[in-house]
């Protein structure tokens, strides 16, 4: 059962002069880009080049050394609540509680975003291939299955902007292609995706931007 997302083509994420220093080491300097609805961006770079830091800055968890991130021309630190309502982040630690069942995890995730009563969480679990695992503690699931629960959050959220740190980690081949088609669908429906991954995304030219953090 596909769950459609509202297309938000007017949204815009703009990054101006972003730099980040950690312990006297410059991770990246003067990054500029604009992402509008219907575009994806892949952040590339070798290990330790600051990809994760970049994503954490983009979602407002970390402050950049200089520069600013704008959501619809408003700095994200200024209006956190409305940015949070438009953005979903799945980090390297995906925030799935191992003592809770996948269903309970999704219930918590749902309460953290826009309240919506009409959502069938079982259908979401089915969509990420976890039907039959609703009632077992997440600690008994494999790493890939936990990541699927986390990705289920994206289906729930219906936010236009997805920020994903290595979303394909620990997924099997079928899971990878499933998530990939989910991302492609999101972008073609007018959403935005920013991700770090070594996995090449199958998107039409012009829709996928890349930034390389290699100095």
């Amino acid at each position, binding site marked *: 059962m596909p769950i459609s997302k509202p297309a938000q083509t007017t949204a815009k994420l703009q990054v101006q002069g972003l730099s980040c220093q950690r312990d006297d080491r410059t991770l990246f300097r003067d990054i500029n880009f604009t992402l509008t609805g219907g575009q994806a961006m892949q952040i590339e770079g070798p290990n330790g080049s600051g990809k994760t830091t970049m994503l954490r800055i983009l979602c407002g968890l970390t402050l950049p050394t200089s520069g600013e991130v704008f959501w619809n021309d408003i700095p994200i630190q200024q209006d956190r609540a409305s940015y949070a309502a438009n953005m979903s982040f799945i980090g390297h630690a995906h925030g799935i509680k191992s003592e809770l069942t996948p269903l309970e995890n999704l219930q918590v995730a749902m309460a953290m*975003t826009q309240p919506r009563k009409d959502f069938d969480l079982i259908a979401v679990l089915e969509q990420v291939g976890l039907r039959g695992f609703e009632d077992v503690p997440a600690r008994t699931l494999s790493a890939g299955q936990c990541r699927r629960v986390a990705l289920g959050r994206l289906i729930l959220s219906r936010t236009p902007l997805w920020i994903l740190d290595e979303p394909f980690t620990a997924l099997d081949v079928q899971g990878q292609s499933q998530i990939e088609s989910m991302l492609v669908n999101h972008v073609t429906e007018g959403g935005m995706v920013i991700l770090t991954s070594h996995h090449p995304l199958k998107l039409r030219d012009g829709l996928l931007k890349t930034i390389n953090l290699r100095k």
Partner: protein
Amino acid sequence: MNEAGIFNAFVTVLKRDLTLAFRTRSEMVNPLLFFVMVISLFPLAVSPDPAVLRSLAPGVIWVAALLATLLSLDSLFRSDFDDGALEQLLLSIHPISVLVLAKVLAHWLVTGIPLLLLAPLLAVLLHLPNDSIPTLLATLALGGPVLSLVGAIGVALTVGLRRGGVLLSLLILPLYIPVLIFAANAISNAAAGLQITGQLYFLAALLVLSLTLAPMATAAALRISLR
């Protein structure tokens, strides 16, 4: 709609933390055991003389309760920090202070309330006069939440550090001292048949103060810790 959403988020986080506490019961029992052990060792180590124990009881019970709370604090944000759930809380559309308040309330319900229920039993063990037991309960009911609320600020500040335990004690203990003084003093006064309203008002004032300010301070501290 939005206020209902905030309330829903508060209840969800509260329920989530209570469920987690229930499923990891052994962690919950640890501070309680500590509380019982410290207090039951006192008569053995100091003196079984009822007069001595009676004068020590208020202080002993409160010091043990305070240290037991301190022992239980680390779990408040630790596991959420480790598995990334804290990031998701910070990125929620709701005010973080509300979610923090739900977490602290859950913490008090699983540690503060059991301490409160055990305290009368241990008070009898220390020969505390029966008519001062209501005062003991009142001080724990007013002071216990203060310990959890103020402790949350310290835990939020140190959660990003690998060995934050010592720092946490150093940060938090000075802030616990007023609670300790007023609470122990109230119980001693009650045992001696003196007025206790002043001390209880002070404890209530501290509770109101920490209830209004601590969630905001904790939210700010969490933002800094996750940076």
